């Protein structure tokens, strides 16, 4: 059901006035979009991409070809690595994201894209469960997460996560 909530949040974030009709299929609860004209669309990334196009905000999918590919890459990461991950995998995910985000403000390029939105939705439950020291250990993920959750209109169905500004460890402890 999380996927459906995400999609409805995304619709709001994109400014889509008419909510679409969704359902889920299979035991993994893969979301399905029922459109009035055309075949049903299956899959979170597929539907999200479609919604972005519907909202006529193609920039959210990336600019150049490489940029677009990067956006796709992170959305795929979300689906394959983050969704349904086991507890042991969480550490790996955080490490991956932390080292990747060391020199980046957004997941793909220098602007906010759908990749950031979906990743934010995807790891929200992970970040919520992190202790303060862990948040500091993965400073870059925390920084990126705090940034995205403050991005106008992104956070609809998810409660804000408090990111402490007074850090326990001073810099140098990476």
């Amino acid at each position: 059901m999380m996927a459906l909530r995400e999609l409805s949040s995304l619709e709001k974030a994109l400014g889509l006035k008419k909510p679409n009709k969704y359902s889920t299929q299979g035991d993994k609860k893969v979301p399905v979009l029922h459109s009035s004209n055309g075949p049903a669309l299956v899959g979170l990334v597929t539907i999200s991409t479609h919604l972005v196009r519907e909202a006529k905000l193609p920039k959210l999918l990336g600019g150049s070809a490489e940029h677009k590919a990067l956006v796709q890459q992170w959305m795929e990461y979300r689906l394959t690595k983050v969704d349904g991950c086991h507890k042991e995998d969480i550490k790996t995910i955080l490490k991956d994201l932390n080292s990747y985000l060391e020199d980046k403000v957004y997941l793909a390029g220098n602007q906010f894209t759908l990749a950031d939105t979906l990743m934010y939705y995807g790891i929200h439950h992970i970040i919520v469960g992190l202790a303060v020291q862990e948040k500091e250990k993965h400073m870059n993920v925390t920084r990126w997460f705090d940034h995205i959750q403050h991005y106008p209109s992104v956070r609809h169905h998810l409660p804000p996560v408090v990111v402490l500004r007074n850090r326990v460890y001073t810099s140098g402890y990476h």
Partner: protein
Amino acid sequence: MGFGDLKTPGGLKVLNDFLADKSYIEGWVPSQADVAVFDAISSAPSTDLCHALRWYNHIKSFQNKKGSLPGVKKPLGQYGPAGVEDKTAAAGDSKDDDDDMDLFGSDEEEDAEAEKLKEERIAAYAAKKSKKPTLIAKSSILLDVKPWDDETDMAKLEECVRSISMDGLLWGQSKLVPVGYGIKKLQIGCVVEDDKVGTDQLEEQITAFEDYVQSMDVAAFNKI
């Protein structure tokens, strides 16, 4: 606030620490705050200052939109962690990186900036001073007004005393204090402005009510 001297490795390190958990200098979108700090940095931070470098590269990508970023450029001392002073020399200064900014009169531009700040502060202080009325010297006086005898109408006496109005005189609380033989004296307090009202004036006016007032004394006199 401020980052120390952004032209030195020390200042850049402060910036780096500051940006570890922030994407931008101020708020959640690129703004003139980022432009201000970006312009103060002479070149890209080294790779060991990964957060500063990340921020630098990101802001660099907005170069052609610099002017249209929101906000107003403020002096560098307005940004950054609290408790750190801004010691960066104004841009366009070809100074040595290690220069100790604590030396006096080292940089003309810096002095000019400091001068301006000082002047601004003096002007603000003067304006504040002139707006606020100069402290008026006030005193709180407690008067003992004694009637002729115990049959004197104390209420009327008090009324008479209170009827005395002068510029700078404010009557306060009063009470009747017995002095013996059934006689009560009126103890009344007042606040006077020293320049305008003196105790002798008060005495004159009070004792003018000869029908009720036998004499008046100053029981207490305190400067406020």
